[in-house]
């Protein structure tokens, strides 16, 4: 069966927003969440352990060909692109950088939405490049739910703005409304 999934993409300035979304999700929600955040390669950062402190989910960095399970937050590993296979397992790829990024948010949004269609919810947060805009448009065209962070609220608005510029029907929400929307939608 097609799983439901929430995919959060972000870059510079997105980390705190992610933490506050996770902190405020209702404890009864267990829809799998995938986080694609641009970060330094080779950085042995404590990203996952910081996330873990903010959520009732189990946080896990993705391994190749791993199955999507409820109750998990999956993070895209640094220096790999993240895609989805037909049997709903994760697939990693080390091909060229896209938008100067690996992982590229565009690639993940596109790959997941062409398989999961309306079961996808994509959220694009603060960031200072254009990654994610094209992918989010593709997701919207595949009937997925698409949200961009309020451009006035985002620390770096380039990313959500780029998405808005090429497709104007995304919901533009501040952090509080993103949380409310997720709590209404997935409870």
């Amino acid at each position, binding site marked *: 069966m097609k799983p439901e999934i929430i995919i959060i993409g972000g870059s510079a300035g997105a980390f705190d927003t992610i933490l506050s979304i996770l902190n405020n999700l209702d404890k009864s929600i267990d829809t799998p969440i995938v986080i694609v955040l641009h970060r330094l390669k*080779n950085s*042995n950062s404590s990203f996952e352990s910081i996330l873990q402190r903010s959520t009732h989910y189990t946080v896990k*960095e*993705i*391994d*190749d*060909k791993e199955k999507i399970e409820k109750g998990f937050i999956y993070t895209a*590993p640094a*220096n*790999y692109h993240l*895609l*989805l*296979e*037909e049997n709903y*397992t994760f*697939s*990693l*790829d*080390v*091909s*060229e950088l896209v938008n100067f990024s690996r992982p590229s948010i565009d*690639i993940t949004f596109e*790959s997941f939405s*062409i*398989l999961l269609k309306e079961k996808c919810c994509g959220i694009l947060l603060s960031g200072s490049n254009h990654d994610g805009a094209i992918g989010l448009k593709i997701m919207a065209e595949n009937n997925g739910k698409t949200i961009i962070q309020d451009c006035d609220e985002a620390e770096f608005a380039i990313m959500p703005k780029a998405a808005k510029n090429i497709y104007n029907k995304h919901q533009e929400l501040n952090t509080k409304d993103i949380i409310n929307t997720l709590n209404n939608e997935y409870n």
Partner: protein
Amino acid sequence: MIKLNELDELLFTIKKQFDYDFSDYSKASMLRRVNRFMDINNMKTSVDLKFELINNPTIFQNFINEIVVNVSEFFRDPSFFKSLHEKVFPYLDSYPKINIWTAGCSFGEETYSLNILLKENNLFPKTRIYATDISRNAIEQSKKGIYDNTNFKDYTKNYYECGGKESLKNYFVSDEKHSMINSEFKQNILFSNHNLVADSVFKECQLILCRNVLIYFNSKLQNKAFELFYDSLPVHGFLAIGKKESLRFSSVYENFKEIDREEKIYQKIR
């Protein structure tokens, strides 16, 4: 742009016409590669693509070169090379002759990185490296060993992070745009065309490096490759795979022990 259902049909045609079997490759990644190839070559539909592949002999080889991912870097994952140096090299040193297989060597970055470390640790004179790839183009590029200068800042950083003490550039001859690996690092490497899917064991090797290659296979094909590696290793031989790849679901898992869980280095124990 083609869709997933057209991809299956395309791969079937390629298998029948050219005897290259990509049917158990990771579909998600393959779809991206094929669409990228079509984009670069201005092809609109899968019919266009099939027509060109069948009627234009040079295009097929280009297609293979393009859909197989050949992106790599020197000393990718410095912590891996550090661990290899600390945990595997001492074992290797106990052999009078060392054979190493770098499977899926792309343009040679990984193989030469390894060779530099072997040299710095005096294992170089007794080591023979077999570097293989499915792509003929990758093998030709590897043999040349010429790399764009733009990424050398990253490579140097990687090199120092894995404990390098020299200047990486000393191992290359450079002009403004490119750097070529010193010819001594080519002497002990045999580059050849090998298909992990179709070909069999060709040499017993004490260390096999196959990092970020199996991610392009589905689980069934990954398992087949693991069996091939198992058969190519002597007892106590080492297998290193990519950081996010896993041996756990393969049929040979029980025959290995973990040398470094994080860096995915395994040793054959039976």
